Structures are given as C-alpha cells and as structure tokens.
C-alpha cells in the first residue's frame, strides 16, 4: 500500500470512549486542516484563518485543542457516536478501532470511476476496560489523561516529519485534495471508518470486490 499508516492504542473506560476518540481525531484534524482557499484571478490564492478552541473533557483530566468549526465537530461527533454505539452493542468490554484516512481523488478515464487513493491512515485502537469502584475510576481518569497527552505528542511528532503531502492544488483541482464542503475550515479529504473486533475479518463485499479485481488482473 502506498500510504503511511500510524497506529495509536488506548485503553479507556466505557464512558471515556467518545471523549478520548474526539480528542485524538480532533488533534489529527487540527494539523491536517487549513483555512479556506480564496483563488485570485492570476492563479494565486490566499488562505483564510483558522480558529482553535480548547475543549475540556468531563471524564478525563485532559484538555485538547480543536479547530473551532462546529460543522467539523458535528461530523466527527456523529462518527464517534456511531462507533460507541457499535461498541456498546457488542458488550462493554469490547475492542475496536477507528481509522481516519486521508485520501486524494484521482480523475480516471471513462470506464473507471474516480479513484480515492489514501495517503495517510491513522488507526486508533481502543480497548474498553471495566472498572470496579470509584477509586479506580479516579486513577483511570488521570492515567488516561496522561496517556492521551503522550499520544498528542506522538501525533505532532509524526506530523512534523517532512513527508509526503499532496501538492497544493489549483482551483479546478481543489476538490480532489481538500474537503471544501465546510464553510469555515478546509481539511484534507478524509474518511472515518470503524471496526469492532468481532467483525474484524473482511466483509463480504470487499471479498467480492477483490475477487472480481483479481480475476481481471490475472
């Protein structure tokens, strides 16, 4: 696969899941978003500004920074909520992973649809633990906060490396690189998917798709 992949692992208590996920996803997206591009006539563009916002967590001793865009927040929250629901259905001590995939669209010739080619995938593996009493919860609250702090530093370290990023597009290509649907911020095109450990095996549809592709590529 021609794409970087980074894995973060956390173990949290059931009620901390969504905050922990939000913290990590928002941290990554903060670094993978720019202000809106305003293209000028001469082929140049200017970048709008991006606001940031501190968010305090309720169940974790932790504060994180996110892009102050409610729309983006809503999208992320929705994905995280779905993930949490899926976790709850399988039982409280579930394991799962949520992945944030940055991709690029590539226009193809007629017989093929546009390709979405990922260039960076962040996988966050979650291990949900059950705690017996309030004291343990208290300890967990601090521990998870510390852990998340480490993860954030991890993320920043990875992002600080000078590695491949899609080139800044011209006006006509901007939709192939950035998600321009939001009003106030412009992240790289991303996709959030999740998996619960029980269903970690490849699904039927992907198998079928691979089968067809493989027979074609014989």
């Amino acid at each position, binding site marked *: 696969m*021609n794409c970087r992949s980074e894995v973060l692992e956390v173990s949290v208590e059931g009620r901390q899941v969504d905050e922990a996920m939000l913290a990590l996803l928002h941290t990554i997206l903060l670094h993978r978003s720019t202000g809106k591009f305003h293209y*000028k006539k001469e082929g140049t563009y200017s970048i709008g500004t991006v606001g940031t916002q501190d968010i305090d967590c309720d169940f974790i001793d932790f*504060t994180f920074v996110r892009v*102050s865009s409610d729309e983006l927040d809503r999208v992320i929250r929705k994905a995280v909520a779905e993930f949490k629901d899926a976790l709850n259905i399988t039982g409280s001590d579930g394991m799962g992973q949520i992945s944030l995939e940055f991709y690029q669209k590539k226009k193809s010739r007629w017989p093929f649809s546009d390709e979405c080619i990922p260039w960076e995938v962040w996988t966050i593996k979650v291990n949900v633990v059950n705690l017996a009493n309030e004291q343990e919860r208290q300890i967990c609250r601090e521990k998870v906060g510390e852990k998340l702090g480490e993860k954030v530093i991890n993320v920043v370290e990875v992002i600080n490396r000078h*590695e491949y990023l899609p080139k800044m597009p011209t006006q006509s290509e901007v939709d192939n690189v950035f998600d321009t649907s939001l009003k106030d911020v412009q992240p790289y095109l991303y996709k959030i998917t999740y998996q619960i450990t029980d269903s970690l095996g490849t699904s039927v549809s992907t198998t079928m798709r691979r089968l067809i592709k493989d027979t074609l590529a014989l």
Partner: protein
Amino acid sequence: MAQFNTEYQRLEASYNDSPPGEELHVPEGMKSQWHHIENLDLFFQRVYNLHQKNGFTCMLLGEIFELVQLVFVVTFTVFLANCVDYDILFANKFVNHTVSSKVTLPDAFLPVDACSARIHGNVLVIFILVISGVFWLHRMVKFIYNICCYWEIRSFYTNALKMSMVDLPYFTWQEVQAQIVEIQKEHQICIHKKELTELDIYHRILRFKNYMVAMVNKSLLPVRFNLPFLGDMVFYTRGLKYNFELIFFWGPGSLFENEWSLKSEYKRGGNRLDLAERLSSRILMIGIANLLLCPVILVWQILYAFFSYTEVIKREPGSLGARCWSLYGRCYLRHFNELDHELVSRLSKGYKAASKYMNCFMSPLLTVVAKNVAFFAGSILAVLIALTIYDEDVLSVEHVLSSITLLGVCITVCRSFIPEKHMVFCTEQLLKVILAHIHYMPDHWQGNAHRYETRDEFAQLFQYKAVFILEELLSPIITPLILIFCLRRKSLEIIDFFRNFTVEVVGVGDTCSFAQMDVRQHGHPAWMSAGKTEASIYQQAEDGKTELSLMHFAITNPLWQPPRESTHFISQLKDKVHREAIGGLQEAPVDSHTYTSIHSLQSEEPHSLIANLLQGPPALSSQYVDNDQLLANHKSVAVVDGGSTMCSPISTSRHLHSSYPASHGLRYDHLTGTVGRGLVGSGSGSRAWEGQLTSMALSEYASTEMSIQALYIHELHQQHSRGDLSRHTWHRQDSDDSSEGVNDAEASHSLPHSSTFPCIATPHQQGASNNHCYAATTEPLTSIVRGQRSAHFPMGDWVEEVQGSDDELPPQIHKVT
C-alpha cells in the same frame, strides 16, 4: 497534565473577506498524475511487462491475435468435427458432378443446415462451445481492462520517463529502472521514502515469486514425489503453480490481504493450529473445485496442445526430442530478486551446454536399435523416393505419400538417438560450464557428473519438451490429487513459513525475508558466510541461495547500495577472487605490467564499477580473443577443431562475447591512462550509441563476472564440505586438477599477452593446444574454469606440482566415440 494548560485564544477570524495585505500563494497544482500511485506493486509489474513486451503496440497486437487465435481454434475444431464429410474427402463416396470429375474441397463440406443440425444434436459440442465462449468473454473483458491500464503505463513512459514507445525495445531494463529511481525524487511515486532503491522495485515486482523460490528452496511445496516404480519424480506444471498462487497469494481467502500485506492473523503465532486447519480446508475446497473443473480444463489443454504443437512436430520432428528448462528447474535455479528476463537469458546461455551434457548419456542399447531401424527405414525411403523421381505417378498410389512422410519422421527420430561421430564427451567439464550459467546445483553432482543418477536428477531441471507437454496434459488430473493429498498435510508448515519468513519493509510492505538477501539472517555457514551468519538451520537458505542471490543482485545492479554486512560480504568475496586471479597472473613468466597497472588503478577505488570491470571480465575477454586466435591458427589440426566444437558448448556464444569485450578491452586500454573513472560516465554521457554499447557490454560483463563468482563460491563450498577427505577422494581430486592445471598454464600464459597484443600466440600455447586432444578440447573452457582454478590456491601448493602432468588423461573423460 500541567504542560497542556496553555492559553489558547480563539481567533475571531473572518472567513469570507480576507484581510488586506495578506500573503498570496501560488498553487503547485498536480503537475503530473504520477505522484503517489496507489498500487505500486501492480504499477511496477505493468511497467516491467510493458518493457518486456517491447512497447504498447506490440503488446496490443499480441493480445488481439491471441483472442483471434482462440476463436479460430474453437470454430475450426467444431467445423472439422461436424461439417466435413470425410467420406468424400477419402474418396470412399463419389460425388456426382456433371461438369468435371475433380473433387474439390467445398464438395466435402456439409451444407449449413445439416451442419448446424449436427451441432445442435451433439451435447458435448454444445458444452465445449459454451465453456470456450465463457472463457473467451473472460479473456475479452480482461483484454479491455488491460488495455486501459497499459495505456496509463504508456503515458507514464512517454511523459514521466521520457521514453517513447518506438525506442522502448532499445532500452535495457536497468536503464528504465534508473530512470524510475530518478523521477521518484521529483514525482514521489512512493510516498514512504524520498528515494527508491533498485531493491524496492525488485521486491515489488517479484514479491510472490520470491516466496515461491524460497518455498521451493526450503522444499516446502510438494513437487517431489517418490513413486513406487518410477522413483524420484518432480511434478510441477503451470496448472499446479497457478493453484499454489491462488491458494497463497490472491485467491479468495488467501493468506494475503492484498498485494502488499499478509493478513495480520497470520503474522501472530498464537492460533497457528487454527489457521492451519482453515488453510487445509480451503485447500480441500480448491482441490475439489479443480476436480470438478477437470474435464473442462482437460479438454482445453488437449485442444491447445494439439493446435500449438502439431504444426511444430510436423515441421521439425526432432523438436520433441529437444529439451527445455522445466518449470521446477526455473524455480530451483532462480535467484531471489531475479527478474524473468535475467533468468531466461542466463538459462538460455546454459542451454547448449546442458543439452550437450544430456546427449552424453545415450543409451548404447537404444543407439544400436536406432541405427538399425534408421537403416531399414532409410532404405525403403530411398527406394520410394527413387521411384517417385523416375515416375511421379507412384505418389498417387495409395499410402505412398504418407509412408514417405512417416519414414522421414522415423529416421529423424532415430537419428536423434545416434550420437554424432567425432564427439568427445567430458561430462565433468560440461557440468562446470553449465554451473557457470545456472549457478546452482546439488553438492553430490560434483565429481559424479558421469553417473546416471546425476543425469536423471539434471533431467528434472532440464526435461524433454515431449515430457513437458505430457505433464501439462496430465496436470488437470494430477493437480487436484496433489492439492488434496499432499499440500493439505503441509498446511501447518506453510502457515509457519509465512509467519517466520515475512518481514515488513518500510515502503515495500510484507516481503519474504529471504529476499532481503541478508547473509546474517539467512546465510549458510557452508557457503562462505561462516562466522557472519546467525541463522538456525531452519532459517538458512539451501544451496547457498542467499549468498549467490546477493552477488547476483549486486552485480546486475551496480548502483545499488547494499546494507553494511552485505557490502562487506560482497567486497570480501570480490577481493578474494581478484587476489587469487592476480596471484595466478603474477606467476606467469611473461610481462604483466598491464595487470599491475590495472591492479594499482583498482586499489585506488576498490568499490567502483571500473574496478569490477577491469578485475574480471576484460581478462576473460582477452582470453576469449586469444582462444579465437589459437583456433584460427590451428584450423588445420583436426583434433583441435573437432574437439573444440564438440566440447565447447559456449563456442558460439563465445564469438558474441569476444566481439564486445574485445572492442571494449581496447577502449579500456585507451581510457585507463587518462579518464579512469570516465568509463562510468560514458554510459550515461557521450553519444547515444556509445551509451547503448556500453550498457550492452556492461550486462555481458555482469553475466561473466557472475559466472566466475558462482563457480568460485561453489568451489569454496566443495572444499568446505569436504572437510576431512579420505585418501581416495584426494587421489581423484588430484587427477581432476591435472586437467585444470593445463588450463592454468595456458590461461596464465596467454593472458598478459592478449590484453596488449591480441594477435600473437606464443609457441608455447600452440604447443599446448597441439599437445593432445584433451588440452585442446577443454581449452575454450579456460575462461570459465579460471575462476574455479584460483580456488585451489588456499588449499595447498599442489597445483604447481600437477601442472607438469598434462600427459595423463583425467578420469572424467567419460566416453570417447
């Protein structure tokens, strides 16, 4: 988390109107569409394929013709079976013609309605038609898909690599590869790394092939069988190979998740038993599917074989007696990280020697029978032909034409069993020459070249074409049996193999760890890597595969930077070979100043390409030239002439060899004084044709150098494994070397001369080649034997003693007819 309590301020930014005086950026845009390609494995494979198929147009035409051929095969078969009235054709039935009495071809055709009625009535024909229709449609869809994909690759070649399709056949793969490495810096095809290496590209193209080579190397695949009556057999056909690949690499539920990564559960040892269970049930399923499809595949194989081979057999009946490298042989002889064209060219170079070697073993019984059959058949044929010449009406007598044809075929077949006259066999030497090209052979062959066991084992690698076709025909029946009864038992081992020998390489994905060619991890102590290797017996690659592959890869890709241990290994080996070669040269009484100068030049930059070039092959080239000269001088001496053609399987290729290196040898002489390292530059710079020539010559050198290294490694290995020798083997070894001693004498005498005065042959040389048959016969081999000769020096000083004894005929001259 105190350190995170910094004060973040929300920026009350206005998103719609940008503040004045703000920075303006210039978008870079997508200058090329080649940045960041999703599936690099497929991409590189296609780039390679397109190069091997000589460009887009050739490929397109080839594929179209293949499709057309398919339609033709099917319709023609159906037509022959259903629409021809054979009674008319054989004149058993008369046609009522009013105009003329001649029977024409169209008379024999049935009318359309009768024909279609016959087809409709025949279930089998309908069945075959449906099957082939489905098959054809599948091919058609694949064809269209491929065309679309390769069109992309074509534009990659023209736009990114700046190579037009017309010129593509004239670029070597190494050049294409260098160009890809170059443009990675600009386009970032692979996003993990700033720079691609040659090894990365090889790994991606050959990912699965490396696994297969490793599995054959570790004898994991069930391809060898010990059958009750037939003895040790190897059965490995295309169908079987296809099934193996289907099971391991790309089929539904295979071990690989996609082209580049093994499924994560297979990387963990925890539930290996469980996984083995699953694998074995999957193999069972695929085996049963094979069994069910068996009739279809069988019919297809028969049809295909019939149409592709009957014409060839009719044209040259000897071709069935010809041999080819078997599929197993290709797998066994392949290095890790060796592309198809490299393997094919290497094996083709060894073909002549190999078929000569096999011809040494003609059964005397068969020869006697064949001679007599040929005699009787020949006399009948002669009479028939004589009669025909006298009056051609003889031809119209029933069966005369067919018997002439049959007798002709019969004689040709018989002749292939009769050894040529004036033939001298020296199996041991032939095997050496073969080894120089194929680079691998089991230990016990050496010294046993004249035995039937060796021959039989070699026949597994180098089989009759007829056997090959037969095996392909039987494959649909045998493959499911092998899958169900043999492969399933191995499923646990397979799971373990994939877990233990898969490494994840950044920027490449999961590859076979053997393909890393790491001497430390997979070296075999008996193959030069003693002391360096940390591998357990399970981890060692057999037959010195790691070491030889490493050498091969380093030689074919001189620009590749191996990891430190490997560099050490390579330079050490080269050093050894070089030192001993030089040592051998300096023993020669004649002036060796050219070589000392070369030597000094080499010591200046021991790792450069020029050093490699000057160290081995030019010496060879001069030898080649010299041999040519010698031969020319002695055309009159029948022994030399006959002997050399008999016993120098490389004789034809030698001319080719000599032409390149000779011209280059001269050029080097000019170059060395002034430019030195400019030689490398001349490959890229200077005029186009010169660059072309250089790169061609480079590949020639590379293959020769590899041959020498391979022989050297094998020889060292032999000495290593001999360890404590019995008196008996010493004795034989001694006399073995007497022959090489002769070569030594010649080689070392002729060498220094030839590099400067290629035309002069010293009286001594003439004497040597005149001396007796053996010296002459082995003489063309000297170039190859040289590498292995040098290996004797560390063993002791007995080479010198032996040198004088060129009068004894060494024992390995097995048979003289």
